[in-house]
């Protein structure tokens, strides 16, 4: 009886409380899971549309208003805790601080309009606005262009076009546009690197009416007017909307074909009857003024063979196609078979490529590029016969 009593006591004082405690913990955990699921569903249900709206004022110093329109598209009330204004180019918040710190409540289906120009004073660049909600969602606007703290979209009714003719390959050309008085333009400068000799480029700038001075710089240095065929001055001056185009014509750079270095790469020794490969490589001097296209047929037809090779065994595959200045490439990879010597004395194969008048053709100029000659000898060794 005592044992039974003790067993019952143990049952009621240990196992039952443990079971009850475990169940309570599990219930707590289940409740927490449900709460989390509800919070996650609420977060996922949030939907906020952010648009940037502004009064476009082209004249600096005049009334300047940029507003954010927050539109709640979800069935829940949304509270935005903060709004960040991000500098998109620098990937950093403007002012390293939130633009708006005051919580804003937006009812389901409702709109809210907030002035934000105070966050963008003097800012130039692309800005994006990110709203952080109380439930922990981020909603972003599309990036907008801001110039001097003003919304720039649709600001410029005119287009100023600047062309540069006959650029030198590899040089960097910069156009600087300096507006006079109330005139304005975007962007203010553009840099372009010429990739071919005598290359031309035209650049467009959004502009208001007014007078502009256009500077042309080559590798960061103002181009002297004596180097220009037109216009006679650098900077050039234009006044929109009557004149909207500036053409800088540089003295044309003559392209002179340079001799391409041709080299035959082949093994020094081969066994009789063995098939081996021969590479024909071409190197274009770094001083060349343009890229060239390799004439594979001309090189293939010029290959001369003499000595102990198997007639008709030469087969060439074209590899490289275009050479840029300073570049070396394998133009042809040929397969050749050594002849069967039928004796003990070693043989010799001589491979020759004479100078070519048109080993390649200039891509821009169309001029033929010559190559030098090269030859190599290959020793053919007899195989040991059992």
């Amino acid at each position, binding site marked *: 009886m005592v044992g039974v009593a003790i067993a019952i006591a143990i049952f009621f004082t*240990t196992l039952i409380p443990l079971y009850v405690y475990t169940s309570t913990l599990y219930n707590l955990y289940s409740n927490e899971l449900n709460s989390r699921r509800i919070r996650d569903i609420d977060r996922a249900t949030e939907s906020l549309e952010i648009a940037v709206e502004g009064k476009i004022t082209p004249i600096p110093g005049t009334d300047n208003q940029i507003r954010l329109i927050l539109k709640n598209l979800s069935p829940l009330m949304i509270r935005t805790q903060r709004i960040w204004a991000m500098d998109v180019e*620098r*990937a950093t918040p403007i002012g390293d601080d939130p633009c708006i710190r005051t919580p804003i409540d937006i009812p389901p289906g409702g709109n809210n309009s907030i002035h934000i120009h105070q966050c963008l004073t003097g800012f130039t660049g692309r800005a994006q606005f*990110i709203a952080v909600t109380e439930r922990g969602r981020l909603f972003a606007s599309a990036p907008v262009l801001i110039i001097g703290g003003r919304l720039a979209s649709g600001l410029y009714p005119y287009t100023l076009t600047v062309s540069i003719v006959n650029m030198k390959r590899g040089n960097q050309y910069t156009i600087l546009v300096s507006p006079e008085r109330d005139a304005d333009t975007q962007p203010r400068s553009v840099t372009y690197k010429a990739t071919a000799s005598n290359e031309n480029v035209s650049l467009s700038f959004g502009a208001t009416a007014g007078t502009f001075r256009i500077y042309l710089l080559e590798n960061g240095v103002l181009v002297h007017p004596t180097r220009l065929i037109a216009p006679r001055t650098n900077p050039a001056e234009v006044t929109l909307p009557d004149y909207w185009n500036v053409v800088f014509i540089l003295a044309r750079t003559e392209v002179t074909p340079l001799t391409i270095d041709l080299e035959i790469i082949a093994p020094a020794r081969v066994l009789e009857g063995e098939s081996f490969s021969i590479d024909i490589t071409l190197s274009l001097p770094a001083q060349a003024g343009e890229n060239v296209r390799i004439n594979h047929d001309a090189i293939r037809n010029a290959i001369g063979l003499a000595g102990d090779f198997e007639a008709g065994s030469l087969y060439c595959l074209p590899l490289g196609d275009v050479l840029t200045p300073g570049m070396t490439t394998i133009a042809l990879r040929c397969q050749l078979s050594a002849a069967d010597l039928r004796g003990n004395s070693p043989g010799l194969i001589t491979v020759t490529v004479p100078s070519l008048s048109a080993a390649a053709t200039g891509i821009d100029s169309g001029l033929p590029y010559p190559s030098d000659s090269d030859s190599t000898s290959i020793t053919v060794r007899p195989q040991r016969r059992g």
Partner: protein
Amino acid sequence: MSPNIHPPHHPSTTPKTQRHADSKKRGDTTLLGEILLFAGVVTLGVALWGLSLGYVSTQSTQLSKEYDRMIAQQRILLIIEAVSLQSNTIWASNPGINDVAVISCTIYPKSHPSPGIRYNTPSTIIAASTGGFKAIRSCEKYPGTPPYIVEVWYIPAHLYDPRDPSRNVMSAQVARYEAR
């Protein structure tokens, strides 16, 4: 035993009385045995009870800790609101229910694999649901080209143990942000 020796005779004791005396002796022995048995059962029972209580107590403590960890993981949430790739600073807030401790902050190119938990932001606590945010400066940045992934590992603040990083990892969660 010698045949001349007899047991002492007691004239006053009759055979009935003798039987009664014998029976009383047996009764004493049985009672003693029962007492001993009772004491043994009680002792064993109490010992077993004590052991059971100890076991239940230990189990309850372990269960409490485990459920506390599991519940805390459901209650934490960290979001990265903004990032500066110029100063490698991030601004994060905690819309969850429990405070969190940030244990790692890295910025790495999206084309690279995640460096994992780096323990490079010791004991940065971000309080829950205050509506505020906190800047975490000097996040570890890996070289490479944009876009970058900002990765912040965090755990419930009350589970954070600076002496036991491996245990911290067991409760850690991650927040990510793509910065261009």
